[in-house]
Structures are given as C-alpha cells and as structure tokens.
C-alpha cells in the first residue's frame, strides 16, 4: 500500500483523554484551552511572551521519559504527549501554588477594585485548596501608592506574575516598571524620580490578575456586578480600537479593551481608555442654546430648530447655497455624516469638509490602501507620519511589535525623532517641507532599493506637520508610489471618523471648498452662514488668524456640539448632540474598517444624535431626508454609498468589522518638489500634536486634564547653545507678521534648524504663526 496521505501539518496529542490536533509550535496551554480543558494561569497572556512566573498552569504530561509536571505556558506541543490537567499530581500542584500565592495576599477582597472579576478569586475558588494553613503575619507595604497620575500600585496584593512589567517592556516599549529587591521582598516598582507615565499604563490595570494595579479613574466607582456592558469601538483617534463600554446606573464608568486580531489586540491607549469621564461631565450641553443679548441662553428644541431653520432659509434664499459652509462631521458616526451630507446635497450646499484643514486631502483615501494587519506584515514600512505614539498610539504598538519581531523594517522620515525612531531600521531627519527630496534620494540608495524588493511596501502617511502644507507629504508618497508601483498606503488621519465622514460625503463637492477655503470665504463675506458639526475651528484649524477673521466676519454660526467649545461661543444657535456611548452608529477607522459604536447610556439632557438633528433641520427647511429611525438610516447609507455596502448587515460590523470597498485607485502624478530652503537665521516650524492637549475629551476628563502640558518651544541642544538660551527661559517666536512668547525646552529629538511646538496646549497659541496659504512656516526665535 502506498502512503498517499499528505505530510502532517498538525501535532497530535491527548488532553484529558481527548485527542487534539494542534499547530506545531503552539503552547500546551493554548492547545488545552482550545480543546476545552481550562488550565488555571496568571502570568500567561496570549499577546505576550510566556515567562512561567506564576507556575499555576502546571499540568501533568506523559512523554517518552514518563510522567512529569510541566508549566503548560512554556511547553510547546509535541507529538504523542498525553496531558492531564486534572490528575492527582496536577491538582495537588495547582492547589499548592494557589496556597502559596494566597499566603501573603491580603484579605482585601471587599475593598479591592478587582473583587468580582478577579482571576485569583475565581481560580482560588475553582482550583484552590479551600483552606489556608497560613497563620503567620503577612508582609506589609504602604498601600496603595500612585506610580503615575493614572495608576495605583498595591504591592501587598501583587502576585509577581510579571504581566505588567512584561507589557511595559515588551509591548509598550516603556520599561518604567520592573521587579526590584529579591526573595520575599520582591516588588514591582518604578525607577527613582520616574513615574510610570507611559501612554499605555491603563493596559496594565486591565491585565493585572489581581487588584495590585488599579486606575485612579475607576477607583471605587463601582463593582463588577453593578456594571452593564456592550461592545463598541473607540473613536478617540482613527485606529478604532475595539472596546467594551461599561456603565453603572446610566453613567459611563469604564472602558476595557477587546482583543481583535485586525486592529488593537486588546490594548487601548490611556486617552481612549479614560476619556469616558468627559461624557459624564457636568459641562455638557443639555438643552439647545440660543444667543440672546450677547449671551447663550437655554431654550427649547422647537425654538432652536426654528431659529436655525430661519437662518438657513434666509441665507439660502438670499445668497444661494454657496453662502453656507458645513465644517466638521468627523467626530460622529458614519450615519451622522451621511445624514448631513444628504441634507447638504438636497440643499445644494457643496462647501463642506469633515477635516479642519489639519489633515490630508480626501484623495488619499483613493490611493491603493493597506489595512493595519497588512501594514504590519509588509517587510517595508515607510513612515511619513506624525509621531504615532502621540497621535495613533495603538498603531504605534502594532508597528513596534512588527519591528521587534523583525517582520518589518521601518524607514522613518520625519523632522523629529519619534517613539518609533529607536525601532526603525532607518530614521532620517529632515527639514519640514523637504520630504519629497529626502525620500527620492533615500529610495535611490542601493540599500533601500534592495529592501524595497523584499516584498510589500506600505507607506504610512499622515499630516506630520501642521505648520506646513500637506502637499509635501503627498509628493513624498507619490515618489514612493512611483518607485514601487505595488506599494500601498495607510492614511493615518487624526480624528476618529474622518474616513467615514469623507466616504459618506462630507467632503468638498467642488474644488476650493475645503475648510480653509470656507473660512477664507467667510472672512471675505462670501460665506454668510457656518454650520459646525462637532467641529471647533477656533481650537483645531492651524491658521488661527484665518479663523479669527472668519468668525468676526461671518453673519451666522450654527453649532451642533456636546460642549460649549471655543467656536460654539460664537454660535447663534447651539444644538446639543449626543456624545460617544449615547448613540448607535458605525465608525470607519483609518484602514477603512467599519465597526459598530454602541449606545450604553441615555443621552444627556435632551441632546440628540447628529443624524436626528439633520433630519429635523431638513424638515424645518422643507426637505425630507426620508429617515425616521436608525435602522432606516443605516440601510439608506449602505445602499446609497457603495463603499459602505460590506457594512450593510448588522453582524458584519461587530467584532472585527468590515473593510469598506475601495474605489478605483488614483495616482499621484505631480513630480516631487521640496519647499524653498530656509534662511539660516530662521528656524523651520514643526507643529504636531501630543497625546494630551486641550481637546475637549481630554480637558473635560478630570483624570486626564492635568496631563496636558504647557506649550513650549523645543529646540535642539546645539541650537540652544548657539542662541545662548537656557531651558525654561521665555523666547519669542515671530513669523508671518505675528509673534508668540513661550518657554524654551531643550530637546535632542529635534533636529538642528527646526523648532518643535506642540499643538493646542495651554499657554501661548502657536497657531497664530501659521498661515494656510504659506507652504512652510519659518520662524525667528528671539531671546527675551
């Protein structure tokens, strides 16, 4: 008989009497759990390397040399293993480990935040000995101590599983906590004078198997049995991490990360994790506001809608639809944007833009696209983006992981060292505006050319510098796409649903109708009415002077927002909108994945979802959008916008979501060209965001608000020395006829000839120096 069977690609073993087929190289614990035998564990985490610290996952394995107790999280599967997770020796071992773990563990369950969702509690109950023989005095530490603004550490409860330290080191790249001392005194601790101020510290709270690490935002707020939860997608940035939104008594109380393979692997950044507090803020707008005698006073919906309708009708009738500009829509859901786009279509308003002049032109979504997973699997990634660690943190985690695992080589092109610089294969500094030339030259080097041939190439492109025109990034990308025709693009736009809003139609319908153009037209008197949908141009549009002039000249402003923002203060009518967690919808992340956003709490006051406001406003203006429920709206959207067709079914947008259909790709045809070189006495301005700034969701969350720093000028140490200024001294930056005064910071991440100022921070506003029609901003730094 001939052996016609294919070579075996799986490993056969026996687990608790069942025969199991496992993948070669898989860990024994995974094989056991997938076959239905739960193995108790603490330190093992599927997304981190196994360390075998806790010894709880001990199982009995019979191999060629007889029976042995092994830790299943560090033992790979092998052919012919006979595994028993419940035999006498295994049970005694598991019970013994639990008894030892509980020996020094304090009797804190009633006051511990983890009680009720604690793996130690659950496994002590299911696999523990049942009684403790420990009658001695347990070890004592001061408890709890804050190791950062957001995280508390209770060393008495720590079972030394190494999860938090592994995460900080392996996953986040911020090894700020580790084990110190030894023996019975081993404890997790930060380094002297270095708090655990990682952008991902909240994840350690989620993965800690006991209540040793707790978050200050959630401390004592509720118990697990009080919580109701629903799965949703975070919309704080455009990564769109999968989360679980938990509430108690109709108030948002916590977010936890959900592990999906395609996006976030269960991790969340601290901003997205803790900004639920802003939804509960008492500064939320509860009722519509109308301007009366110069101040915004509360009014009823009928009055407000009536007023807004009157304004729009007058402007549309007298001056035509081009006198109305719609700005915003990238903070809502796809359906919200679609409803507003439909309203704008029916009214003939073509001047609309979801981006606030601080992103990339909408055409980037028509370039050949890559998903996040594809990006992390490409052998070459070219970064033409802002500091991902500050703006899209979980994408930074993914890329760092790809770089550390050596599956990807990152070529970073940026004016300043970023969080990924130390993981990049090549990190090239350049003057802002010079990317096209730098990239072209880089692509020509033999080393890089050879690398590009190794496989797929992805360009991660974003608006790296708000003080320069986005065309340079585009041209640099064009250079890559010309050199590597098969290359693809991952556009990392800032706001949660820019891609969705643009796809739904909130994008300029005629040339020269983007936000900057709308604001210019408003300043010139051509646009008489501005409609702001969750947009705050006064804080977010880089050209502050333009915004000031626009608001001064425009006749009417109608705002739809959750708070009274800087821009809303100019509004004539403010219609309160539902915030995240208060409405149902879908959102599209930067890779085009549509996933659902769930409602968990009732909306504040009488606020409504944006789409409802659009429909009602339409009725006021005699236009029927034809939508009276969310279901109808979603169906209408997936029918009308072909890109959203994969998201038509409710099941499709849960969990992993559905990637939108890509339109016919376009090409960047313009030749790469750099900005003019700067004069030697000037510095080129680099403005980019930090994770914590004055954004509403951060500043209205009491835990996060203190983390936003003061605006400062970051200068290379060499330049500082040349200018003769010291750290902390005030300097004056002047450009384009304006000047601001800021303290100085010496930062060796900044390259020479460049000054970096973070965007939208407290203190002086650097945006006064930026002009939207100037390609790059050259500043003069004066010592005061």
């Amino acid at each position, binding site marked *: 008989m001939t052996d016609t069977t294919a070579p075996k690609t799986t490993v056969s073993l026996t687990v608790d009497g069942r025969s199991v087929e496992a993948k070669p190289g898989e860990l024994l614990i995974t094989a056991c759990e997938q076959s239905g035998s739960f193995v108790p564990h603490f330190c093992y985490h599927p997304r981190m390397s196994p360390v075998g610290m806790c010894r709880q996952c001990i199982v009995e394995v019979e191999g060629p040399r007889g029976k042995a107790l092994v830790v299943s999280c560090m033992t790979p599967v092998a052919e012919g293993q006979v595994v028993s997770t419940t035999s006498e020796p295994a049970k005694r071992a598991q019970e013994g480990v639990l008894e030892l773990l509980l020996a020094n563990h304090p009797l804190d*369950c*009633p*006051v511990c935040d983890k*009680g*009720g969702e604690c793996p130690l509690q659950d496994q002590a109950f299911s696999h523990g000995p049942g009684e403790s023989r420990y009658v001695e005095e347990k070890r004592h530490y001061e*408890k*709890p101590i804050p190791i950062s603004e957001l995280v508390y550490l209770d060393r008495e409860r720590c079972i030394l599983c190494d999860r938090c330290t592994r995460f900080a080191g392996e996953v986040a790249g911020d090894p700020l906590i580790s084990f110190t001392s030894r023996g019975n005194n081993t404890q997790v601790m930060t380094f002297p004078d270095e708090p655990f101020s990682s952008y991902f510290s909240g994840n350690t709270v989620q993965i800690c198997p006991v209540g040793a690490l707790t978050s200050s935002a959630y*401390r*004592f*707020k*509720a*118990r697990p*049995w*009080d919580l109701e939860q629903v799965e949703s997608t975070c919309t704080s940035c455009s990564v769109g991490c999968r989360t679980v939104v938990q509430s108690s008594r109709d108030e948002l109380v916590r977010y936890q990360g959900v592990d999906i393979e395609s996006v976030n692997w269960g991790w969340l950044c601290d901003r997205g994790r803790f900004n639920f507090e802003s939804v509960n803020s008492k500064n939320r707008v509860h009722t519509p506001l109308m301007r009366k005698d110069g101040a915004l006073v509360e009014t009823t919906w009928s009055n407000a809608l009536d007023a807004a309708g009157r304004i729009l009708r007058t402007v549309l009738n007298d001056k035509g639809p081009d006198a109305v500009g719609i700005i915003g829509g990238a903070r809502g859901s796809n359906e919200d944007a679609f409803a507003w786009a439909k309203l704008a279509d029916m009214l003939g308003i073509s001047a609309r833009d979801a981006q606030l002049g601080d992103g990339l032109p909408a055409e980037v979504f028509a370039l050949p696209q890559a998903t996040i997973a594809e990006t992390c699997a490409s052998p070459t990634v070219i970064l033409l983006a802002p500091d991902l660690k500050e703006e899209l943190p979980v994408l930074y985690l993914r890329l760092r992981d790809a770089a550390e695992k050596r599956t990807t080589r990152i070529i970073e092109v940026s004016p300043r060292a970023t969080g990924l610089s130390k993981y990049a294969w090549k990190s090239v500094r350049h003057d802002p505006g010079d990317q096209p030339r730098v990239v072209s030259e880089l692509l020509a080097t033999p080393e890089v050319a050879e690398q590009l041939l190794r496989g797929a190439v992805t360009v991660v492109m974003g608006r790296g510098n708000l003080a320069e025109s986005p065309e340079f990034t585009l041209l640099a990308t064009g250079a890559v796409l010309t050199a590597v025709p098969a290359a693809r693009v991952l556009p990392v736009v800032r706001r949660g649903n820019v891609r969705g809003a643009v796809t739904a139609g909130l994008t300029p319908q005629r040339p020269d109708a983007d936000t900057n153009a709308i604001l210019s037209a408003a300043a010139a008197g051509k646009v008489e009415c501005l409609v702001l949908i969750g947009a705050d141009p006064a804080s977010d549009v880089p050209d502050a002077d333009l915004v000031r002039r626009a608001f001064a000249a425009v006749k009417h402003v109608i705002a739809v927002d959750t708070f009274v923002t800087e821009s809303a203060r100019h509004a004539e009518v403010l219609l309160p909108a539902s915030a995240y967690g208060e409405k149902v919808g879908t959102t599209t992340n930067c890779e085009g994945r549509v996933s659902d956003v769930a409602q968990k709490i009732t909306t504040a006051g009488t606020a409504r979802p944006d789409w409802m406001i659009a429909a009602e406003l339409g009725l006021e203006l005699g236009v029927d959008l034809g939508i009276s429920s969310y279901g109808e709206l979603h169906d209408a959207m997936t029918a009308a916008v072909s890109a959203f067709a994969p998201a038509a079914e409710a099941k499709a947008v849960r969990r992993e979501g559905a990637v939108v259909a890509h339109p016919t790709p376009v090409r960047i045809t313009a030749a790469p060209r750099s900005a003019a070189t700067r004069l030697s006495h000037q510095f080129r301005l680099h403005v980019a965001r930090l994770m914590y700034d004055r954004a509403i969701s951060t500043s209205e969350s009491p835990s996060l608000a203190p983390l936003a720093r003061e605006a400062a000028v970051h200068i290379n140490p060499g330049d500082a020395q040349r200018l003769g200024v010291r750290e902390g001294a005030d300097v004056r930056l002047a450009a384009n006829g304006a000047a601001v005064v800021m303290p100085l910071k010496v930062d060796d991440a900044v390259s020479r000839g460049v000054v970096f100022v973070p965007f939208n921070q407290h203190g002086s506003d650097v945006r006064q120096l930026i002009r939207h029609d100037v390609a790059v901003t050259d500043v003069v730094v004066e010592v005061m």
Partner: protein
Amino acid sequence: MGYLGGFLVTFRQHGRKNRVTTQYSGGRLFKRKKRNAPTMDEKIDKPERLHGRHVLNRYEDGMEKCIGCELCAAVCPAKCIHVRGADNDPDNPTSPGERFGWIYEINYLRCIHCDLCVEACPTEAITETKLFEFSFTNRKDAIYTKNELLVGDDGKPQHLPWEDWRPGEDQHTSAWMRATAPAGDASFVGVVSWAGERGYGVRPAEASQAQADAASLPPSDADVGRKH
C-alpha cells in the same frame, strides 16, 4: 365526635382567655382612658432574632464599620441597596482602612428583610434591629440614606420621627451571627471573634445548641453519655 363535633370546637374558642393576638393599638379603649395610645398598645415580645430595620454599626472608637464593599448590594435579592465606596480621607478617616461607604441607601419599599446582606457583610457593619413599625407617607422617605441608617455617636440606632421604637429593639441585632464562628465552625462556639460595637461593647457569644438544649430540657437518661 362525628360531623357535629367540629362545631363544638369552634364554638368553644370564643372568649378573651383564648385569644392569641393582643389588642394591637387598642384605639378606642385606650383613648377613653385618656392615656397615650402608643404606649398603651399591648405588644407581644418580639422573637429574639426578628428581622427589622437595618442599622450601620460603628466600632467602639466611633469609626464606621462599613467599608463600602457593595457585597450587601450584590447579594440582595430585591436589589434594594445602593452602595458606593470612596477613599478615606487620610487625615480624617471614616472607617479603618482604605475605603468607606460613601453612599449607602436602602429602599424599604423593596426590602424583604431576608438578612442576606447581614450574612454577606464582612465587617458586621450592617445588622438588623427588631423595629418593623416604620411606615412612611411618601416614596422619598422610604429610601433610607446612610445618615438615617448609621447609629448615633452613642451607638444607638436613630429614632426617626415616623418610627415606633420600643425598648429592647436595638438589642440582639442579628444575634444569630454570633452563635458560631463566622465560618460556622462549631468548634469555635463561645469564642468571641468579632469586634466590639459602640454603645454595646463586645456583644457576648450566643449559647451553643448543646447549652440551649441543656437549659431548656431536664436531663434524661438518653442524655447521659451523649457527646457535647
């Protein structure tokens, strides 16, 4: 007796001596005697471990026992308890430890007096007195807040205006909790393993079953040789 015997039985029950119930708030009778009706109401002695209105207890030094752990709310089958914990102010702690009960409310329209909350409490903070006569006239009064539930500085329960407190109703609060050790281990009977309460000191342990039996029954031959 046949069919008609039953009639004689019921007929014989007439008369004051046969009454088991008492003239509860006799009303007219006592008003005529111009004495205060409430104090004149005959009341049967309440069983020693009657489940009545809850109180939040204090330790002997005045600190509250409640640590805001929400275990009582979790176990309550009627979902009538709302608890929220908060951090103790280090300069002025309300309870010993990290956490104290900051919000504590019981909705007596839903409470079924099952005392599961008393069983669940790890610090014996919530116990039930024997007061059950506390009707209110509006829903708001029915939700007792922590201020109303907490015992006073002297350790005695607060007497709210609509409550009808009688002497002895604050004794024996949840006495059955002190019959054995917290884990129910019979070998710990009589061993005091609980903290003292303000105003009452350390409450004595309950008699064990064997002692109670010995006290109530005369010893019989069957008792000889029976293990205690």
